[in-house]
């Protein structure tokens, strides 16, 4: 887009003045109708968002207490006075962190290949892109089935057979399998975000580095990646915020209805905040009595997703500052 506007070419004294002509536009019913309709649609969507958030904050605030977030509940977690959500907070946090450890390296390396090495028109590149796009559209429940069929029934069972475990250690729902399933699910998010940030780096930087005698790998590791770090963090944020609230993929791969203690190993099943919201709202013997803890749990889930986001945003801001100082 060039910045030359049409007004520059107009003669100085046009009659009548152009601006007045536009302002004096008559009241037009269709214009009003169209503005109103699309504006209302926008307003309605924002209204829905505000209603959901306000409803949860107002009803959930009263149920929050230090006791609530730091207690491991007894088996009967529907009781308002003794219940807590500590194991769920721990479970959700760990599964998201373990997922990040797997998805970030794979996603970033794939993005590096796509932007730095691959020829854009080659068949392999196009197939990789198509695969990434498709992966992004696979329903979350299908990821759950995949986790059960592949990670638990195939990888896990074969590992048990290999190590001659008399009882199922790996071949059962576990934290590690849930995290891996989520890592597969969020891979496209990381790839796309990283790719965007890599593309935004001016080619001149790479050329300068190569001209100074650095190899391609050195250029990528020391010039390109540090520059792309904020973008990679963004990908991480998006992946984490998507994964933290997902329930369908972990239904069969690791989420437990009840655990008496916190998960100690990666092979333990775990309690999960999102799954707990599902359990509380559908299996409660008395929904009216459970309502306060239900709202409080939902609020904790929302706060956790926002908190994880916030941490990532702060890291990102710091990295940016550091980069600016270096540059």
């Amino acid at each position, binding site marked *: 887009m060039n910045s030359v506007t*049409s007004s520059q070419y107009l003669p100085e004294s046009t009659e009548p003045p152009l601006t007045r002509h536009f302002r004096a536009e008559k009241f*037009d019913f269709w*214009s009003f109708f*169209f*503005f109103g309709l*699309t*504006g*209302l*649609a*926008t307003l309605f*969507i*924002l209204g*829905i*968002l505000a209603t*959901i958030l306000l*409803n*949860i904050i107002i009803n959930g605030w009263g149920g929050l207490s230090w006791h609530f977030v730091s207690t491991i509940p007894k088996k009967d977690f529907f009781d308002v006075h003794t219940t807590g959500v500590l194991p769920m907070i721990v479970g959700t946090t760990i599964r998201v962190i373990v997922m990040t450890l797997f998805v970030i*390296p*794979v996603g970033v*390396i794939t993005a*590096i*290949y796509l*932007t730095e090495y691959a020829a854009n028109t080659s068949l392999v590149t196009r197939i990789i892109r*198509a695969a*990434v*796009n498709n992966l992004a*559209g*696979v*329903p*979350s*429940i*299908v990821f*759950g*089935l*995949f986790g059960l*069929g*592949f990670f638990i*029934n195939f990888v896990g069972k074969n590992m048990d057979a290999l190590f001659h475990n008399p009882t199922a250690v790996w071949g059962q729902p576990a934290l590690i399998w849930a995290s891996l399933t989520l890592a597969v699910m969020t*891979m496209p998010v990381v790839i796309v975000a990283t790719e965007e940030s890599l593309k935004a780096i001016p080619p001149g930087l790479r*050329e300068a580095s190569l001209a100074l005698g650095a*190899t*391609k*790998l050195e250029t990528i590791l020391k010039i390109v990646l540090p520059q792309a770090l904020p973008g990679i963090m963004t990908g991480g944020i998006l992946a984490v*915020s998507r994964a*933290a*609230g997902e*329930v*369908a993929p972990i239904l*069969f791969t690791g989420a437990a209805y009840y655990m008496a203690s916190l998960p100690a190993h990666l092979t333990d099943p775990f309690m999960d905040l*999102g*799954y707990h919201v*599902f359990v509380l*709202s*559908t299996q409660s013997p008395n*929904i009216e009595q459970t*309502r306060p803890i239900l709202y409080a749990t939902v609020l904790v*889930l*929302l706060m956790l*997703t926002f908190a994880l*986001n916030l941490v990532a945003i702060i890291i990102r801001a710091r990295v940016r500052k550091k980069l600016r100082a270096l540059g």
Partner: protein
Amino acid sequence: MGIHRGHQARTGEWLAEKFIFLVSLSAILMVLLIFLFVAREALPIFFGQANTALVQKPILPETLDQHSPAELQAYLEITPDEYAKMTPAMLRDLLSVKVDAQNDIPEDFRNDPDAHINTTEWQYLLQPHRWNDYAKPEYIWQPVGQIKKFNIIPLIVGTLKVTLIGLLFAVPLAVGAAIYVSQLARPRFREILKPAIELLSGIPSVVVGFFALLVMATVLQSLFHYQVRLNAFVAGIALGFAVIPVIFSIAEDALTSVPRNYTQAALALGASRWQTAWQIVLPAALPGVFAAAVLGFGRAIGETMIVLMVCSASVMSWSIFDSARSITTTIAAEMAEAVSGGAHYRILFMLGALLFAATFVSNMIGDFVIHRFKQKLEGKR
């Protein structure tokens, strides 16, 4: 990037490049693995190897050698892996247990014609069947009980019903908002409105489901006065909330990518802002908006938790105020109770494969249309 190595490749460099290439293939590998392992568990259904008939021609332990492994696996409802681990003695034990079980079936069940049917055959999966004690042929999904009925048509109808309600609700709203935000709103508003609407996608679907179950269901019932409190209508609207941000982002992107000179030309010719938006920008961006709806469909058809929480009874009905059970819901709700390797388990995996195929196709269409649209716009510029 147009930059090539200008000097001799070192071994380390070469290795790193190959390693990076191999890792980048993992996306392809994952798509293949997903398809392979979901379909693998469903294979016996496709090949007609599962048998749920209650009364079967018994295979006597003595005649073990006369039957093929596939026959035995289907008869005993075990996986090939399990079969491979078994000794002939164990198989004979299992066969005799099965024969005993057959002998224990009460006499009135033996006379029931349904007890001789293998309900996993395609004809029972897809066509209505007049079950014993029913007045007319019906579509029934009833995976528990003595005679398990696996007709998947009610689930497909339920999925389509909920999805269509969701899209009818979400598409006009999301596209309207996209037009407003991209064409009509002041730039200062746009900077606030866009991230605010996209914030909706940050709300986990289990939270939307919870909200629909506790708050929306009651509000909608008092507005529309229908009988069943939790029905396909509530689920559809809640589903709409989940797909609005998806459709909005893609449609907004398509509308914004229409070249500025289209708009400028229209305004210069004296068209008002709404005429420009409605008659110039929207038609130009129509393929993108269509793609947004298709991708929204893919997202809606695969949404699990919302429909699972809001309605669950599998009723064969097109009425929007009846309950409905979607494919995703069925998988999520019944997988825990399905016996691993049994017919029910395999049919659930088959439904998963079906879902995978449906979203695969809708994503392909959506991506293809967007690709063509972008190319067309670039070509015209």
